[in-house]
């Protein structure tokens, strides 16, 4: 009897499930809207909320398309895209790290959308350039940011030294870091792990020293600074295995007095270390006569996957192209809108920390853009690791990295 009842229950449940599934299908078919699927790698609650707000806003703004998004873990992201190109299982829109876009344009993932109704000339040049190839547009910048210098005010006060500011030079910075290094605290730390995440943070030192991603030897001063500070113990050697979240965790825990990091860490600091008394300023400049330090642009682009019908993806880009939509999304996201005017919203300009990042963005440059960027990145980061672990002298590492970089191009 009991068994019979159970069987009946199971059968009933099964039928119910099928009915619900059937209804679901009927519902989406009934509306007759075209689907726009977006891939992203957003993990935090704030980021997920931002995506949902954007999608809801887009779906309500018109009745031709329904957008939805799929989360793909960041560690697998580029692999999934590559496999997707081979298998043809791809979304309509992809949100991806700006520096990877050139490779994927070359790989044929994205379609030419130069005819879309977008206000191209309102965008900041660096991020926009990373969505283009040979004068054609393949998407638009989604968010833009860069790294700057965070400092722990309490540790500076305890050591009795002034906070770093826009006039701080490498020499000043080195003295500060030295004075702050005591009682298990390191003066400074950044992310120098063996991936592009490390390159993203280390490369700015090379540019500030006068080098570039193809001209390593002109930036050899950066190598010297890193090696000497690590040998002094004021720049933690641990950073050769640190990702950007490792750096931020150590900054929040008070293990490092200064960190190089981006604005996306601010929500995390507010949630996990609300009492942390910190400030942010631009990265130290080469010397008193030099201009503001160069930083490296980070942030995401939205690329339109190459399909016969790209109308849905274009409609979504046009929706996002509206300055107020962009500004609202970026407030939730913790990055800056990639339009010059949009970033002048008082939400950012009235906050000294946010303002420091906006000042730093003015002298920030993109990585590459080059379809071969991953190979450059790998060669360049090996050079930084050789210097930081004292495996080679700065001069030797510069010569070897230069040779490795020359062999790529």
């Amino acid at each position, binding site marked *: 009897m009991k068994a019979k009842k159970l069987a009946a229950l199971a059968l009933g449940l099964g039928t119910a499930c099928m009915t619900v599934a059937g209804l679901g299908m009927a519902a989406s078919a009934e509306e007759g809207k075209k689907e726009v699927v977006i891939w992203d790698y957003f993990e935090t609650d704030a980021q997920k909320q931002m995506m949902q707000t954007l999608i809801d806003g887009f779906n309500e703004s018109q009745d031709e398309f329904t957008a939805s998004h799929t989360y793909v873990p960041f560690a697998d992201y580029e692999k999934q895209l590559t496999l997707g*190109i081979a298998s043809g299982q791809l979304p309509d829109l992809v949100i991806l790290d700006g520096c990877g876009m050139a490779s994927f344009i*070359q790989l044929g993932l994205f379609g030419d959308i130069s005819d879309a109704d977008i206000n191209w000339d309102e965008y900041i040049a660096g991020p926009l350039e990373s969505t283009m190839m040979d004068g054609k547009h393949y998407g638009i910048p989604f968010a833009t940011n860069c790294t700057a210098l965070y400092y722990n005010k309490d540790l500076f006060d305890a050591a009795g030294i002034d906070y770093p500011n826009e006039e701080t030079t490498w020499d000043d910075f080195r003295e500060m870091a030295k004075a702050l290094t005591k009682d298990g605290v390191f003066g400074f730390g950044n992310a120098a792990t*063996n991936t592009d995440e490390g390159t993203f943070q280390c490369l700015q030192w090379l540019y500030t020293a006068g080098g570039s991603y193809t001209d390593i030897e002109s930036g050899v001063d950066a190598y010297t600074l890193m090696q000497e500070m690590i040998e002094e113990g004021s720049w933690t050697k641990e950073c050769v295995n640190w990702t950007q979240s490792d750096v931020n965790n150590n900054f929040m825990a008070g293990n490092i007095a200064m960190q190089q990091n981006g604005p996306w860490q601010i929500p995390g600091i507010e949630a996990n270390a609300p009492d942390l008394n910190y400030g942010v300023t631009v990265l130290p400049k080469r010397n008193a006569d030099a201009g503001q330090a160069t930083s490296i642009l980070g942030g995401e682009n939205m690329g339109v996957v190459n399909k016969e019908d790209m109308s849905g993806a274009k409609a979504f880009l046009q929706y996002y192209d509206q300055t107020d939509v962009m500004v609202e999304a970026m407030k939730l996201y913790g990055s800056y809108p990639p339009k010059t005017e949009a970033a002048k919203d008082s939400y950012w300009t009235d906050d000294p920390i946010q303002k420091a990042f906006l000042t730093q963005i003015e002298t920030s440059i993109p990585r590459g853009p080059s*379809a071969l960027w991953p190979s450059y990145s790998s060669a360049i980061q090996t050079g930084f690791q050789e210097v930081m*672990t004292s495996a080679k002298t700065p001069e030797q590492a510069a010569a070897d990295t230069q040779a490795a970089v020359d062999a790529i191009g």
Partner: protein
Amino acid sequence: MKRKRKLAGGAKMGFLFALPAAVYMLVFIGYPMIQNLILSFKNVDVFSFAQPQNQKFIGFQNYIELFTSSNSILTKSIINTLIFTVGSIFFQFIIGFGLALLFNKKFPGCSFFRGMTMISWLLPVTVAGLLFKFMFASSGGIINQFLMALNLIDAPMEWLLKPSTAMVAIVIANIWIGIPFNMMLLITGLTTIPADIYESCSLDGANKVQTLFKITIPMIKPAIMSVLTLGFVYTFKVFDLVWVMTKGGPINSTELVSTYAYRLSFEEFQFSKGAAAANVLFLILLVVGIFYIKLINEEEESM
């Protein structure tokens, strides 16, 4: 006459039984392998991936470049993989064999502790990798704390930050993971030795060491050879542990052939070179595999 026909029918049935396995092998192993081989002789990279008309056969050029180009670290990664494998297997086997002998004795709580040692084998490798990454951290890592408390070292060791010690650290992590595998296979071997053999040799006056080297080891030689060859194959293609702990760094000192092939294909989009590196890995393991099959056949013939 009748007997012959029966045999032929049996052979037919045999083929029929082998068919599903053969089809499976062809589709899921044969096809990707051949595709990979073809890919490794082409020039598919970031520029030609989307343009099939530009994909050309370039013979052994990928292999030559992998072995000779100054930007290639294939040779280094093969040496690293060999060090990693031999270092891991040597200690895994010795410790695993010791534990097998221990747990082969019956003592109170024996099966409980034997079960406990399996934990390191059951734990997902990525989790184990993360745990070891924390344990080997220079500041605050438990291994440094422990060594300093015992006054074995004065200052924290930079385990994962120095090329030489990073390799030691990943080998230690892999030894911990692999011990139960060695132990279980060897225990299975030990249980096949009849108790009366031990009885008779103790009557003959053999001591423990003599029993170990003259009776136990020769008797479980097939199990030992299986453990060593299978262990070699498993260790040689380890990927996740190293990817989690060091990503091949610092300065490529822990780059294995598997991580290098992945890096080439999925990070640098050099698909053909990545395929070639994977084939080099395959070739090395093929040699080991043939050796293993030959070994098993010899054992079966001698039985």
